[in-house]
């Protein structure tokens, strides 16, 4: 039998048949559920890919504008303000919050950016000239960083989802192509073994029955022969008895003598 290698090592009993059937049922339910999960994740995955594409394009534009606004600052201030800005920045104005989002049992981190109000460490930079360009440049870069944050959270989700989808698909395939066929094979094997046993039993019973019939037939024949013989003998005796008087000492009922 070809399935001999591809089945579980169980004794072909009715109990294990029951077990296998439950297992098959479980596997099928699991397969359905995982398939659905994988589809949900893939849907999400496609959406994220699309959004990454958008975000990347947006990032290209925003970064270009930001770089250009820096050029404007250089033009307006006419010098290097980098050092001063670096030194006067004390605390972060642009901050991040992380959240978790649950997509079909997968936790995706999502980054959310927010700016702290009233934190303007280098508000006076370029007071003499170019101050407004500096501020505008800062705003432009803040927007650029926002886009980067969005992109980062999408990319993280992308990587995680990719991993999870792979795992889920592997499971789906494992169930579909390994576990279910094997369980089915096992069930088939158990069934065939059980059938075999049934047939053996049936045959044995038949054999026993046949032997019994033979025995009865023989006995019948013997009895018949004996009866015939007895009949013959009985006839002769009958003839004898019938010729003799009645049995006085017989046990036939006598009418009781009543005084």
């Amino acid at each position: 039998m070809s399935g001999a290698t591809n089945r579980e090592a169980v004794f072909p009993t009715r109990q294990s048949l029951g077990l296998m059937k439950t297992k098959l049922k479980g596997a099928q339910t699991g397969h359905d559920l995982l398939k659905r999960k994988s589809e949900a994740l893939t849907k999400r995955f496609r959406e994220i890919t699309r959004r990454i594409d958008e975000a990347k394009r947006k990032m290209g534009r925003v970064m270009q504008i930001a770089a250009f606004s820096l050029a404007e600052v250089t033009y307006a201030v006419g010098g290097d303000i980098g050092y001063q800005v670096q030194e006067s920045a004390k605390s972060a104005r642009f901050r991040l919050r992380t959240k978790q989002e649950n997509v079909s049992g997968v936790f995706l981190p999502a980054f959310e950016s927010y700016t702290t109000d009233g934190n303007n460490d280098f508000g006076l930079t370029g007071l003499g000239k170019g101050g407004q360009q500096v501020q505008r440049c800062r705003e432009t870069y803040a927007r650029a960083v926002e886009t980067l944050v969005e992109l980062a959270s999408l990319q993280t989700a992308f990587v995680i989802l990719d991993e999870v989808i792979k795992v889920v698909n592997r499971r789906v395939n494992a169930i579909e192509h390994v576990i279910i066929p094997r369980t089915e094979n096992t069930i088939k094997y158990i069934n065939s073994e059980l059938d075999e046993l049934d047939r053996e039993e049936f045959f044995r019973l038949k054999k026993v029955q046949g032997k019994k019939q033979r025995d009865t037939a023989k006995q019948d024949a013997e009895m018949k022969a004996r009866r015939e013989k007895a009949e013959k003998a009985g006839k002769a005796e009958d003839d004898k008895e019938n010729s003799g008087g009645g049995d006085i000492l017989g046990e036939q009922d006598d009418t009781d003598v009543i005084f």
Partner: protein
Amino acid sequence: MEGLLFNVNNGYIEGVVRGYRNGLLTGNNYNNLIQCETIDDLKLQLGPAYGDFLASLPPNPSTSTLAAKTTDKLISEFRYVRANAVGSLAKFMDYLTYGYMIDNVALLITGTLHERDTRELLERCHPLGWFETMPVLCVATNIEELYNSVLIETPLAPYFKGSLSHQDLDELNIEIVRNTLYKNYLEDFHSFVNNDSEMAGTPTAEVMTEILEFEADRRAINITLNSFGTELSKTERKKLYPSFGRLYPEGSFMLSRADDIEGVRLAVEGVNDYKTYFDQAGMGQSSTGAGNMSGGVGGDGKSLEDLFYQKEMEISKGAFTRQFTFAIVYAWVKLREQEIRNITWIAECIAQNQKERIGNYISVF
């Protein structure tokens, strides 16, 4: 009258500077520059004007190195002129460098305040503002030592004295310190050109007064505009306005009380030039805040700062129509600086492929 003896000492310098002025890029050159497709093309176009200084640049240099190299040319020419200057002209040129010195000292103060190694900062200092004793300032480890060595070692001492103490350096924002110094510097420069025996009553005094008054007004207006929405209070702001200029005193007083762009517009109403700039820049009518170069997004009209630069260049160009004056040195330095800014701007536009804004440079020749 002043022409009688001017050439004895300063004739050579004047000739040299006028020669340099002719070396400035003209409108034609700029037209060629904006046609360039790559930085290399740009470099090639700049070849005749900058020659040797750009020769050592690698192919496709970054805009900042390009700017640094073009500045190098200005520096070397300035040093040459300075080396040949004598008497009042030498002093005049020293005054010219004080403005850059203020920037450098402000940089060192920032570094010391944040306890950085100030020696590294020396490289970042503007070479025009370099003075021999500057490395000495780096020895200072705390702000008080620095303050004392600035007082002793630098020519900027008078600007610190009386208006800033060493506590102030610690507490005030560095921008306020810088602008206070600059205000003192402008006032000092102004009184120098008007009171020096060699300059008073000469075309130098006339032209320089015009330039310095414009500079003072520009700073006052810019400080006011840029201080909206910051923690700079009105009284502090008032201290930063130079006490001369065409806006002084009424305009300055009104500026100090201005709360918004509309207020600034009212304050400059008295001076026709500035009023026109405000109208041109489209500020005041719609007080939707901020009107300088509209940050990267379109904006075809010129901004107020552009107009100010334009005006500065015109004044500088006008200075060359006068003879026997030191002001041409100042004008030449300013024109050359603007040229460097223009080149950087054009290079930046080419590098970032933003050709639509490339015409934003200011050319007066």
